[in-house]
């Protein structure tokens, strides 16, 4: 276990145990933690994938630019989360390590589906190992698959379940977010429109004025993953309000 702590050395048994009704309540509670997290959105377009997330802090004194909710895993894959920030750092680190280990073993970039399988396997491990708790995050992975030359959007849950999405929302108000996306999403959407739609989806649950400093946007195209700069986000916002 790569992240063994003093606790897991002392506990040989898993803290995630079955309830009489067959549920793993720790996972249910972890999902609640995800639901309480900042809203994030992922949309798959014909020529790319967009990830977007709200970045609000309790105090105006926090230097927002120093914190990143959307992070690159490789040059061609990006990750966003809803839930506990520190848990995201651990999952991100493992995802990056997996990706470069794959590159070393096979001499090529890890396909997005393989990457999400490794992330999901890590999350599952923490539901069945001694002395650890499940991760309090769900992640959205945006990537470009080189074999089929298509964009891909995956989600991985605290349980270790992973699935592919056309578009989805996580975190606070995700139900309304998904309803909004069901109406606005279509399969012919191009990346530009998808970014637009993602920002609008965030806006549905956004309290106050949305600026380029209180949201983050990342896009993944055939030539790679990158985060939009604040000025690029500002241009998109100008097109909305």
């Amino acid at each position, binding site marked *: 276990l790569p992240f063994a702590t003093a606790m897991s050395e002392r506990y040989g048994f898993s803290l995630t145990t079955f309830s009489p009704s067959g549920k793993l309540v720790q996972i249910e509670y972890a999902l609640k933690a995800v639901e309480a997290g900042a809203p994030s959105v992922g949309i798959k377009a014909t020529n790319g994938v967009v990830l977007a997330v709200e970045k609000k802090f309790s105090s105006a004194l926090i230097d927002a630019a120093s914190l990143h909710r959307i992070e690159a895993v490789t040059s061609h894959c990006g990750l966003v989360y809803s839930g506990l920030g520190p848990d995201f750092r651990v999952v991100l680190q493992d995802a990056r390590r997996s990706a470069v280990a794959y590159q*070393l*073993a*096979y*001499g*090529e970039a890890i*396909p997005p589906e*393989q990457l999400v*399988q490794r992330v999901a396997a890590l999350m599952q491990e923490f539901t069945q190992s001694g002395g650890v708790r499940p991760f309090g995050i769900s992640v959205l992975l945006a990537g470009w698959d080189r*074999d089929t030359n298509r964009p891909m959007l995956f989600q991985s849950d605290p349980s270790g379940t992973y699935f592919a999405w056309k578009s989805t929302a996580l975190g606070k108000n995700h139900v309304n977010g998904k309803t909004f996306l069901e109406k606005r999403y279509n399969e012919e959407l191009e990346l530009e429109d998808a970014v637009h739609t993602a920002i609008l989806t965030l806006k549905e649950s956004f309290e106050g004025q949305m600026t380029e400093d209180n949201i983050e946007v990342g896009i993944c195209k055939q030539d790679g993953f990158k985060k939009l700069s604040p000025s690029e986000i500002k241009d998109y916002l100008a097109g909305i309000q």
Partner: protein
Amino acid sequence: HLSMANPMSYNGGCVMAMKGRNCVAIASDLRFGVQMQTISMEFDKVQQMGPRLFVGFPGLATDTQTVFQRMQFRKNLYELRENKSVRPQTLMNMISNLLYERRFGPYFVEPVVAGLDPISLEPYVATMDLIGCPMEPEDFVVSGTCTEQMFGMCETLWQPDMSPDELFECISQAMLNAFDRDAASGWGCHVYLIERDQVTVRALKARMD
């Protein structure tokens, strides 16, 4: 009885591969010996690892068998996980890593990879040294106890863009005339011609000495 001299020449044998136009060819001699004594004339060093992917394992016979079996294991898991056929370049990388894992106590094998990319059908040949240093040239690769002779024959006979029939003729002549000048190789030859929709294996009529 001689003590075990050079592991790379203890059993003898040779493999070569060449690129053609939309095709590749790989060939192996059939001798398996223990120093000067020939034990078998049916020891083909080429194994199939995919529908259009073949690997030759010349060198110390015990190691060629082990490396092949371990590669089979890794390749099978890869294909199950990724739900696709492994690409020749990727397989080459995997073999290279497997050999380098034994950097300070190596397998005495210098493999040859030959195949067509599963999707683009691009021809590919590669070889590596016993610790996994890869070489992916545009023309041909050779490995075994008569590499000097094989290099000479290939350099003379090979041309780019040969048709499957021309490529077969070329690799056959190169093999026969190279391993006939090596005491530790020969005793028959198998040539594999890999094209987009078929793989042809032919046994060459060779000097049986």
